[in-house]
């Protein structure tokens, strides 16, 4: 199987650093002074019960949520909460980070090809021919070239999610965020998506993955972060934590997930 992103080797992927990040929704403190480092080219899995703040943390990395305090650094771009964030700084950050959502969020009025090509034209200034050629190459690599002229509504969930990954990759991101990418999918379909993610990890992409897929977290991620109630309660080597969690809270969460 060819490498999914040759570019990842050319453009060094970036690390992600989160420091002293806090975020409230109203009076509800969702993230409480979170600090975390993701080394370039590494994969971090973020797990924890729902409501623990893991999705919010992920969304703070590309500023879909504005943190109240703290800083987010991707590569050489740092955004500090509180200070007025200019649109330019925001775009500079987002252009380095690709994101994949639980609900895919493909644009339903565009064909699969246009979904992947249009952002490249707009953001990287590629010509239409160039963008579509790259889109087709990437679609080919995830086995969906024959879907190029269809609308996303005609594709299965697993296909849509692979297209969403390709759409983000086509912009040459230096890090990728995944927000429960397989939670909306049947298990056997999720496997196709996980396979693409595994390949991406092997090719050296920096990834932060919010997931309930414990096997993926154990086998693919380099670093495991367990969150509960807006705090990181435990982090470290995925196999070590899963074999012997040091926190009671982690133990309860893991046994609940694994029993399912």
């Amino acid at each position, binding site marked *: 199987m060819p490498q999914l992103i040759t570019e990842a080797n050319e453009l060094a992927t970036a690390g992600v650093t989160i420091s002293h990040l806090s975020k409230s929704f109203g009076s509800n403190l969702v993230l409480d002074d979170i600090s975390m480092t993701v080394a370039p080219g590494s994969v971090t899995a973020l797990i924890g019960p729902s409501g623990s703040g893991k999705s919010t943390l992920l969304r703070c990395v590309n500023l879909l949520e504005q943190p109240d305090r703290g800083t987010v650094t991707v590569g050489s771009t740092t955004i500090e909460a509180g200070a007025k964030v200019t649109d330019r700084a925001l775009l500079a950050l987002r252009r380095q980070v690709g994101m994949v959502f639980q609900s895919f969020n493909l644009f339903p009025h565009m064909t699969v090809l246009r979904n992947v090509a249009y952002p490249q034209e707009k953001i990287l200034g590629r010509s239409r021919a160039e963008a579509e050629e790259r889109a087709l190459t990437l679609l080919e690599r995830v086995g969906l070239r024959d879907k190029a002229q269809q609308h996303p509504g005609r594709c299965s969930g697993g296909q849509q999610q692979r297209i969403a990954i390709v759409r983000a990759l086509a*912009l040459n991101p230096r890090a990728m965020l995944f927000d429960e990418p397989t939670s909306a999918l049947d298990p056997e379909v999720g496997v196709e998506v996980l396979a693409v993610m595994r390949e991406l990890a092997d090719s050296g992409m920096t990834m932060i993955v919010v997931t309930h897929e414990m096997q993926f977290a154990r086998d693919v991620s380099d670093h495991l972060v367990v969150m509960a109630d807006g705090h990181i309660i435990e982090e470290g080597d995925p196999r070590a934590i899963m074999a012997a969690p040091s926190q009671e809270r982690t133990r309860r969460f893991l046994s609940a997930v694994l029993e399912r």
Partner: protein
Amino acid sequence: MEAVVAVLLGLPMTLLVTAAAFAIGLVGGIPLMLGLRSRHRVVRLAVRFVVDLIRGIPPIVWLFVLFFGVSIGALRFNALAAAIVGLGIISAAYLAEIYRGGFATLPAGQTEAARALGLGRRSTFVRVLAPQAARTALPSVTTFLLALLKDSSIASTIGVTDMVFAANTFVRQNPMTAGLTPFFVAAAVYVAISIPLAIVARRLDARMRRSA
């Protein structure tokens, strides 16, 4: 037969008033919709007030005010202009609300995905949200057009020579023989335009749904 011809002579005026007012509404509804969706609270509230005010005043009052009330220096509306402007303003307010509703039904994930890709506000709005909102709004826009076609008949009250005006005139000129025939003729013509329009709109909507 005479009645039919007399009423049909009013048809071009009915179509003119409807089409012109609808055109004003289609275009004028856009800035109002943008105001209703503004990031600034003050703008939002102000435009909301204007839209509700326009919709709160009965169309016939609008036409009377514009026709009898407006005389600023040399500017006076003749009956046709007052009808087109009045119905145009009302259309803009209703269509703004319909457009806004089209955007409101879009999942938040669409905006988030566009932002996460790094698309700016403008591209997100024009290329991602607006085409989808237009699709959702299309059935309501057509329904509004059909209502406007019939409402254009109130222009006859200020002397625009549309179908209803023509029917009225014919009845007055032939009090012994006309009966209600001219009004039935007018009704039949309204129906004859409305039904095909509704069918075309449904087809269009179904086709868009299939491709989406």
